[in-house]
């Protein structure tokens, strides 16, 4: 199937201008941010002279194009610069924080899918029934909740009032040790280490933010599942299957569901990158040490390097994700690579 590698290569080629675009836009955007990093760097009670010194030291006195070339040059060396607010190299910060965000997002999606997909299938098999309406109300309510509000409400209910949830202070209560870092995903690392107590501790920390985020992604997933299931169920091949005596479960899962999976997959990709963005507020509320909260803090203090690094990382992630989706698509759908444009 020579079509597939070609399809994937062309996707990568398409992604390149996007990355370039992101680099440019990010650079311009961060330069347009208010606030003067030189002033920030110079610290309290610094005067005009020391600020000017710092500005020159940071290269901020150079014209914009020159700064951009400098920046791109650093990028190509893998140097994302140093964050003002945390004082760490941005690359190190991102590497440390990205797994936290990914773990949260992935778990949220996993939770969301495990609810939304069956809901969507259920609704599609009984369109117009009360189950259908109920599903719609539920998922719509989910997507209508502002994540920051859901997060606060959940914390209030489960932590302050009921005392069921642990303190929302990040990935692990400080009574536990961080598991040996293998993947950076605490749940996986703890499981690999066989340390189930830490695993449980990490799970307890992650569950509320994951639910908060997951609630928000229920709607798109279940909507698309329902729609594509409905379409698949009314398709000719399902009728053929039924006419050949195949029974409910085979028809629904092997025939309809597998076909319905394709649009779901696409949506999932979009939802994933979207929730990585939506993470920002959830991470803020739950003090989650991910890249979202990092970006918010960085933006507020006009931390150029951090913002640039964050956006770039996200863009690359987005591109990689789309690529992964495309590859997944080719695995599920044999037609890929054969389509005419």
């Amino acid at each position, binding site marked *: 199937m020579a079509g597939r590698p070609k399809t994937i290569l062309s996707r990568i080629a398409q992604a390149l201008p996007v990355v370039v675009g992101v680099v440019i836009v990010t650079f311009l955007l961060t330069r347009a941010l208010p606030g003067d990093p030189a002033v920030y760097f110079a610290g309290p009670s610094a005067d005009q002279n020391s600020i000017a010194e710092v500005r020159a030291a940071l290269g901020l006195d150079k014209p914009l194009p020159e700064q951009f070339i400098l920046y791109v040059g650093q990028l190509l060396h893998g140097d994302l610069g140093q964050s003002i607010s945390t004082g760490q190299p941005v690359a190190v910060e991102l590497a440390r924080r990205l797994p936290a965000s990914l773990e949260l997002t992935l778990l949220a999606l996993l939770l969301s899918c495990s609810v939304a997909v069956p809901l969507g299938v259920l609704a599609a098999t009984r369109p117009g029934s009360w189950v259908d309406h109920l599903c719609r109300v539920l998922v719509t309510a989910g997507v209508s909740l502002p994540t920051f509000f859901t997060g606060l409400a959940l914390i209030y209910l489960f932590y302050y009032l009921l005392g069921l949830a642990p303190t929302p202070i990040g990935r692990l209560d400080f009574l536990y040790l961080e598991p040996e870092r293998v993947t950076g995903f605490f749940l996986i690392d703890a499981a690999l280490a066989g340390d189930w107590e830490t695993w449980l501790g990490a799970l307890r920390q992650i569950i509320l933010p994951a639910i908060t985020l997951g609630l928000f992604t229920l709607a798109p997933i279940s909507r698309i599942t329902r729609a594509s299931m409905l379409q698949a169920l009314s398709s*000719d091949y399902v*009728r*053929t299957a039924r006419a*050949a*005596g195949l*029974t409910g479960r085979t028809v629904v899962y092997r025939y309809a569901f597998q076909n319905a999976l394709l649009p779901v997959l696409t949506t999932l990709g979009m939802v994933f990158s979207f929730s990585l963005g939506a993470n920002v507020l959830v991470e803020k509320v739950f003090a989650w040490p991910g890249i979202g909260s990092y970006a918010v803090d960085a933006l507020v203090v006009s931390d150029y390097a951090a913002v640039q690094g964050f956006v770039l990382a996200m863009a690359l992630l987005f591109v990689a994700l789309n690529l992964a989706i495309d590859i997944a698509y080719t695995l599920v759908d044999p037609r890929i690579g054969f389509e005419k444009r």
Partner: protein
Amino acid sequence: MALLDIRDLAVSFRTRRGTVEAVRGVSLSVARGETLAIVGESGSGKSVTSYALMRILDAGGTIKAGELTYGGVDLRRAGEREMADIRGREISMIFQNPRAALNPIRKVGRQIEDVLLRHGRATRLNARARAIEAMEAVRIREAGRRYHAYPFELSGGMCQRVVIALALACDPKLLIADEPTTGLDVTTQKAVMDLVAELIAERGLSAILITHDLGLAAAYSDRVAVMRRGELVEEGAAAEIFARPQHPYTQKLVAATPRQGVGVRELLPPEARTPAPPPRIGSRPLLEVVNLTKTFETGDGPVQAVKRVSFEIRQSESVGLVGESGCGKSTTSAMIMRLLDPTSGAILFDGQDLAETPARRFARDPRRAQLQLVFQDATDSLNPRWSARASIADPLARLGRLDRRARRACVEELAELVGLPGELLDRFPHQLSGGQKARVGIARAIALEPKLLILDEPTAALDVSIQAVVLNLLVDLKARLGMSYLFVSHDLQVVRLLCDRIVVMRGGEVVEQGPAEQVMGAPASDYTRSLLEAAPRPPSGEAGSRGLPPRAVPL
């Protein structure tokens, strides 16, 4: 005793406009080894009847009344589990549009396996072998390789074979074929139907053939039942029905079916026949197509869709452009229509080369009004958000030089001309029937009184009785307005009714062209001959007997 017995079947659908009775009091029976054809136009309830007896009605459909007995089993009251056992093992079904009827992302072999496993006809160990056997049984060559194919990798005819293999894999006793050839090319149609007939004969199956095509029904069935708007109109031996239709509807249907030796006026009921206008073909060529070539650039290199095609159309002449799908006839007509720029060649219209003006700018060209098109799919060709009036008035507003009031009058005049009642003018396309939409499309095309009208399969989506009316309308209009027609179609019988000359295309090239009678009567090319032979031959009035079909050739 009949294998299948349907008594007073009534099926209704819940819709937003209330309950619709799709089938009303239909009684039918199929004997062992017998093939029954159910014939009817769209909306006649013929497919619903078969779905009802398989109990696979779409959502909202219910069997309201009646008895369905298959080999002693009460199908209406059978449990869902029991029905699932019967489907595929006792009664099987094949569908129209075979490619859509197969799961697009599952290997065809696996789909057959699913059925075999379901009915216990194979075990996990031998399922593949069994599936390949089933495929071989429907004359699929290299079944072992095709087992791994996905539907999109197979041709339409091959897909239909797979569907048939799937249907027959578990040796059912009754086969229901629901428009099995719709969506296939003429030659493939014949191959598939011959295969089905052969398999039926070979296995001694009972069969129900559901079709809108009287010719097909006559050629491949023992007995014919005619349905109309949910009711059984007439039933009888195939030959009998065609020779001596009793019910007026059957008579109309039989008459409207285009067939050898019948003129366009004869398609209409006798009371509606008016004398055919005499042909007045001019001597000057209106359109000359010279060495027209179109090459498309694709990922796999250039593809020549049209290769050096030349023909001409004289004033007031009708020329038929015939060929199977992919032969380049649509590309050719699109180039003549100036919707597409040719790669090379000339399109001389009234002596001027139209190809010199790029298609992009032709919209505003004054000659635009001279060349108009009637689309294949009237539904698709009408803007769903525009009323019939607006659609007809659009060309007048763009290219005509009439003020608002004159335009309005003109639209009404046109509506009358094409036989569209004035009160329908303010309706939207979805509120019109197929025939009405076709009329709107025609009215729009002739609004500017073009010199050349290209008819792109204008009746392909219509029922036969309506097709008869529309064809006659086109004949009348041509006589009245003195237009030339380029009639693009895959159906030689229809083309013959309207055209003075015929151009046959295949693989982007002209295979044969000449006067209609000559091409139809004494085709010079083998291809034309095979096209003619492939078309199911409806009994032309008298003798219509079911000849044993020739043995199907493996594809």
